[in-house]
């Protein structure tokens, strides 16, 4: 089977498949983000179609580049990583002082014994660990201790869409504002515009998110009464949380883009382009931008991780019904299955993003060969 693909990889049709699937998944992603922002509900079919397109894109690309072994290795490694993370978190949780059913008013011992029997807490830790792992293997993350009668999977499927929405909006803000700001600052290197943009950017990096939120709420909710200060109910509710979450990564991206553009501008081929007499605009957009955006793309892995961590705080500030609130509360509540489930989910997202970024990296910069 590999032989077949090896022979086929230089053919035209496989290039077409890569182009078609790549562009369509990108366009569907953008349009569904815009749709969800305006208030339309993105249908599950569209999401599934997008997932199918992107999987098709990555699979064809992997085959075409002979990276199958590499990708299989990475996916295998990702599973090992998640297993180790589950183990670390599990161990840490057992080290936490206090148990999930400690209350101000002590429960009768029979009741505690019953509860512990239900959740297997009376068994040795290793048995509990085994129970948990075999549960995950069957796709069951267990039942929450605090939200009686709800499984962790329920809680995740309820809250994940909101967190995802917030995260994607923030990422969009960060690329939409960060990259142009960085390019503009670099093209006007050492001018007042450059200095202003970089001052704003460094303030964006340094301000704690709850201060940005405080400033925005004081201006837009208290003084002007334009935007609601909390909840997650429509476009007007999305604006402040996504700004608060997006401003820090946008500032980081702007600084990164500026540095990388400045580095490219001083390279030999740009001097050649200048000496050919090309207009500055053409040089900037055709020659500089393509190469200088590669480091920005590599930074997407850490960026997603930062946005995820930031989203916990942002959700808490604006009372967004997402996973962040649960994540923080579940530690205080000693809700072991919920912490484990959420941690694993976040880690899985991070690991997957890093793999995808690495693949995209080699896609945009053919000099990089992954193996």
């Amino acid at each position, binding site marked *: 089977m590999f032989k077949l693909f090896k022979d086929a990889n230089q053919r035209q049709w496989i290039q077409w498949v890569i182009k078609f699937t790549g562009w369509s998944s990108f366009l569907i992603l953008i349009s569904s983000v815009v749709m969800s922002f305006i208030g339309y509900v993105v249908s599950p079919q569209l999401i599934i179609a997008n997932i199918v397109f992107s999987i098709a894109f990555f699979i064809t690309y992997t085959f075409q580049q002979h990276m199958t072994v590499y990708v299989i290795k990475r996916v295998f490694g990702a599973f090992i990583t998640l297993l180790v993370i589950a183990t670390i978190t599990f161990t840490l949780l057992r080290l936490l002082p206090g148990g999930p059913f400690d209350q101000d008013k002590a429960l009768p011992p029979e009741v505690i014994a019953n509860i512990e029997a239900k959740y297997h807490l009376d068994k040795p830790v290793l048995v509990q660990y085994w129970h948990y792992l075999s549960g995950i293997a069957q796709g069951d993350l267990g039942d929450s201790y605090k939200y009686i009668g709800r499984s962790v999977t329920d809680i995740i499927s309820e809250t994940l869409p909101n967190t995802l929405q917030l995260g994607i909006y923030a990422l969009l803000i960060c690329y939409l504002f960060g990259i142009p700001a960085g390019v503009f600052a670099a093209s006007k290197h050492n001018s007042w515009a450059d200095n202003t943009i970089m001052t704003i950017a*460094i303030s964006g990096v340094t301000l704690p998110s709850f201060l940005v939120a405080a400033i925005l709420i004081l201006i837009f909710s208290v003084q002007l009464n334009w935007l609601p200060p909390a909840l997650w109910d429509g476009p007007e509710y999305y604006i402040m949380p996504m700004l608060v979450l997006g401003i820090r990564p946008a500032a980081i991206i702007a600084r990164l883009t500026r540095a990388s553009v400045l580095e490219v501008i001083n390279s030999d081929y740009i001097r050649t382009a200048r000496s050919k007499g090309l207009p500055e605009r053409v040089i900037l957009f055709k020659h500089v931008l393509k190469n200088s955006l590669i480091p920005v793309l590599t930074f997407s892995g850490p960026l997603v991780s930062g946005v995820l961590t930031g989203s916990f705080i942002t959700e808490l500030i604006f009372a967004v019904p997402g996973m962040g609130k649960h994540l923080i509360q579940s*530690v205080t509540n000693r809700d072991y299955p919920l912490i484990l489930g959420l941690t694993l989910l976040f880690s899985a997202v991070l690991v997957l993003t890093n793999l995808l970024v690495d693949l995209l990296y080699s896609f945009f910069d053919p000099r990089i060969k992954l193996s």
Partner: protein
Amino acid sequence: MSSIDNSMHAKSLWSEGFSRLKKNKASMVSLSIIIIVCLIALFARQLAPYSFETQNMDHILAPPGGDYLLGTDSLGRDMLSRIIFGSRMSMAVGIITAILSLIFGALYGAISGWVGGTLDAYMMRFIDILYAIPSLVLLIIVKVIFDSLDLFDNPELKALTGILLALSIVGWVTLARMVRGQVLQIREMVYVEAAQAMGARGWWIVAKHIFPNILGPIIVLLTFQIPSNILYESILSFIGLGLQPPFSSWGVLASDGWRSLRTYPHLIISPSIILSVVILSFNLFGDGLRDAFDPKMKK
């Protein structure tokens, strides 16, 4: 009389770096702010007009001005004194955590980079795994665990242990990665090869040749680590896992102020201004340091 022009004297890398740093106005202003804040933190007892825990029930939530320069909080405690004492906690968190994570991260990175091979691969694998755990989760869990241990008798240190250790555990990972990268780069240098050819032992080369050469980047990274620790501490305070009262840091004060954002904005304004200014100063100073000591930027 010497006929040699003074400017022709050979300059060491360090003195050249310092002279470049002195020319950077933003960095020098930032450095002086940092030094002033450090002095305030050291002499908090002498400088603060009131104690940080004295409650004055006659002046609850007083606005700024008069006897209380920055007003009082909901328990009648003077905000200015609380901010001055808070600088002790915030700076301690920032600096001690950065040093703790540096010691561990540098050791880990140096061993990994110098030994190389399978050990390096496994050590880096472990770091990759730590990277994939959301840092806030790790922070919260580790902090709660360490808070339950009684390691110190001093009440100030006791209140700080959980935060210090939790932040160090999260922070060392970045440093370890960077130190490893630097060690890998420098062990390929010709002077290291020369030392090896002359029969120098591994630890000697690390201490004598590699460490001095990676000191610059490490100091720069340390400068960036301090504000990020202060920031993380304020975030932890915001989610209610910061220092225990009556102790306060800028983060605790700002997040207390957050709760009465609409009614008493003075409670959030003053701590957040000082918090942002200090974080900004550290970042600007770090930028200046990097520009001054990074050989790549040399003109």
